[in-house]
């Protein structure tokens, strides 16, 4: 690509006043907004805005498996397709899915599968389609979070929700939820996800260099951040039912009936 403006990385990732470039403190998350039921055709769907990330997820299933040979006689299968639009990144992405998208799809599928009861759905498939339409660091975490929400919206039986967030190291300091610039110019990145039915980590990747103490602190920071994101996730899900309740009341019905 020949572009007239280059994607520059700043030398410093902290401002004079000790805040990060976008004004956050070290352990602040970016603004997160979630909404369920945004895609009418899907069995379940959700949308997330996480900082500048904007991501749609839709769920179809249980349904017939295509191609048929992938079906398993003793359980259902979960397939995840994480994709990015060509315009979601600074340099236009090629339209065909690349290696990165395929790997992340697999990581997310593996992360979500523990909360599902696939053994109840032999011979069928659940498919989750994730479309990142605007990307700014941490898309795999936001995608995992929104995918779990779409599953819940689809009414798929789940042991619990799954929530994901990253912690990282920039300019030698440990911070929560790296933005795009921080991810590219920083020193370390640790995306994690938690399955809440057993409080265990279901997604765990790490890139960079940290010592033992820092790694321990990372895990503590991650747990704190995951709890906050989980709350936003729950609120989005409850809001849908609250809305239905309000609509019934407006029409003069009794929601308890």
């Amino acid at each position, binding site marked *: 690509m*020949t572009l007239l403006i280059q994607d520059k990385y700043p030398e410093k990732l902290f401002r004079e006043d000790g805040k990060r470039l976008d004004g956050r403190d070290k352990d602040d998350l970016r603004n997160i907004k979630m909404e369920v039921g945004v895609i009418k055709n*899907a069995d379940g769907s959700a949308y997330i805005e996480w900082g500048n990330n904007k991501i749609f997820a*839709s769920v179809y299933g249980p349904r017939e498996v295509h191609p048929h040979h992938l079906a398993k006689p003793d359980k259902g299968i979960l397939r995840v*397709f994480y994709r990015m*639009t060509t*315009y*979601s990144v600074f340099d236009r992405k090629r*339209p065909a899915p690349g290696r990165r998208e395929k790997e992340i799809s697999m990581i997310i599928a593996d992360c979500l599968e523990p909360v599902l009861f696939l053994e109840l759905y032999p011979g069928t498939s659940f498919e989750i389609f994730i479309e990142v339409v*605007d990307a*700014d660091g941490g898309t795999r975490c936001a995608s995992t979070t929104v995918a779990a929400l779409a599953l819940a919206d689809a009414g798929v039986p789940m042991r619990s929700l799954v929530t994901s967030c990253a912690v990282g190291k920039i300019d030698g300091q440990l911070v929560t939820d790296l933005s795009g610039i921080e991810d590219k110019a920083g020193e370390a990145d640790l995306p994690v996800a938690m399955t809440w039915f057993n409080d265990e980590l279901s997604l765990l990747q790490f890139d960079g260099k940290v010592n033992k103490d820092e790694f321990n602190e990372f895990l503590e920071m991650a747990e704190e951040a995951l709890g906050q994101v989980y709350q936003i996730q729950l609120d989005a899900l409850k809001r849908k039912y609250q809305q239905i309740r309000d609509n019934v009341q407006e029409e003069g019905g009794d929601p308890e009936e």
Partner: protein
Amino acid sequence: MMDIKRVISTIEKEYIKNNLEKGNRIDGRDLWEYREFDIKTDTIAAAEGSADVSLGDTRILTGVKYDIGEPYPDTPDDGVCTIMAELLPLASPLFEGGPPDQQSIELARVVDRGIRHADCVQTKKLCIKEEKAVYIIFVDMYVINHGGNMIDCGGISALSSLISSHIPKGKWTEDGPEWTGEYFSGDEIINELPIPVTFGKIEDNLFLDPCLPEQLVSEGRITISVTKDNITSIQKSGTTTFTTEQVRMLSNKAFEIADDLREKLDLWQYKSKQE
């Protein structure tokens, strides 16, 4: 509203058809009425232009990106504008993943042809240096929900994203293309607004803007892209046939409908602000 299936039952088809014969639509519209358009622009931070357009339940997110490349040898001072469409499997159980299929290619090409043959994209302004450097503008449409008539939604989406675009202006130097520090505004690279107008046909009933159940039971459709004074492309699609009288009538209607829509949507309001 009806479920989405590959095959529509005879009884549903009869219901839609009988209503049309009486001049009624299953969603309560008039025969020549569009569903509501909802347009938001500049929604994608990473893109040089973007539009999130809904037409009823159909929703298309379009983004504009650019690259600087060499011009085609036969048009040494013309920039290039390419239009792509993806029917995301996220958007409908009718869509499958994988490389672009006939449906998505048709969508991209019909929108593209409507724009290409109008005085729409100002390709001469998208030249930095003859024979050396021109802009390649990518307009990429992603269908987020399929509720029928993707072409008209896509056409408005492509125009809105271009109008809202803020592509950096380049100048030629010894070292190659360089940024002038300014941006193109939408009305510098776009002039005319060609509007694709799609009519469905179920037996002898003709109507504007098929919604999904109508599209699924119709034998075909015709898209007529028009500017203020000219027809810029026509696509007849599906297994149906049209009489010349029908085509004449629909092309006249297309001008009327497009004029109304241009006025109603007032797409120039989405013009990028100069920073």
